[in-house]
């Protein structure tokens, strides 16, 4: 976990791996959206479900422990620093996107939710979630750059 990374930045290998995985997941969601447009709903469901559950595992196993160790002890006192504010914004929006995505999966793919708690306007919810996901992803890329490649930020 604490080995040197392979992308040429100061990041550990796990951070490099997660960055590439998250980019692939972001692309996967877009591919899943394209499948829905092509009326291939079964494949669309499998694609989006795989991305959402893989992301859930990454959040629980890697991102939350890292956030707890490196960011949580410094907030709210140091939120004025880009280093912490980027990571916090990424964390909040990322969790929101993941929870919304899980809610859509539960609503669309299972009968677990009561009728009145289910979504009716799927397209709006799904498009909104993909947009939120990508905002969180872009903030994640910015967080990676600030933490591990700070020369990008120096004048």
């Amino acid at each position, binding site marked *: 976990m604490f080995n040197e990374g392979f992308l040429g930045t100061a990041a550990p290998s796990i951070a490099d791996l997660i960055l590439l995985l998250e980019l692939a997941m972001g692309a996967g969601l877009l591919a899943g959206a394209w499948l829905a447009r092509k009326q291939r709903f079964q494949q669309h469901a499998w694609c989006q479900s795989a991305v959402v559950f893989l992301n859930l595992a990454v959040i629980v196993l890697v991102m939350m422990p890292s956030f707890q160790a490196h960011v949580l002890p410094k907030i709210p006192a140091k939120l004025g620093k880009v280093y912490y504010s980027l990571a916090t914004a990424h964390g909040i929006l990322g969790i929101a996107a993941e929870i919304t995505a899980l809610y859509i999966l539960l609503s669309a793919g299972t009968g677990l939710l009561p009728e009145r708690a289910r979504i009716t306007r799927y397209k709006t919810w799904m498009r909104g979630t993909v947009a939120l996901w990508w905002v969180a992803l872009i903030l994640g890329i910015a967080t990676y750059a600030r933490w*591990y490649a700070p020369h990008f930020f120096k004048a």
Partner: protein
Amino acid sequence: MKNRNLRVARLAAALALGLTWPTARQKGFTADAQQTVSLAEVKIDNFSFSPAVLTVPAGTTVTWTNRDDIPHTVVSSDDPKAFKSKVLDTDEKFSFTFSKAGSYPYFCSVHPKMVGKVVVQ
């Protein structure tokens, strides 16, 4: 009468303690002053520890100071870990006293490229 004797005895004890306490304190102070305490510093800046290798006598307290504009940690590479700092923000410090001779490699857990070593003689 017994109560009066008890009060006198208490007063005498208090006076005796009061007279001897400064002497005892001075002895303690002298004993503390006779111990040689060594201090050494490592600066964290621009994604590196400086000096990267620090040689010190046993009993030295090494202090790492983060002069970088981003957070770093100081974590022993040994297993079990001899020392581990919290995340050090800019200008925050971490100290550890090396009591035993040996070689103590360490790294930054946020940026594992950053490595250093303390050699205790």
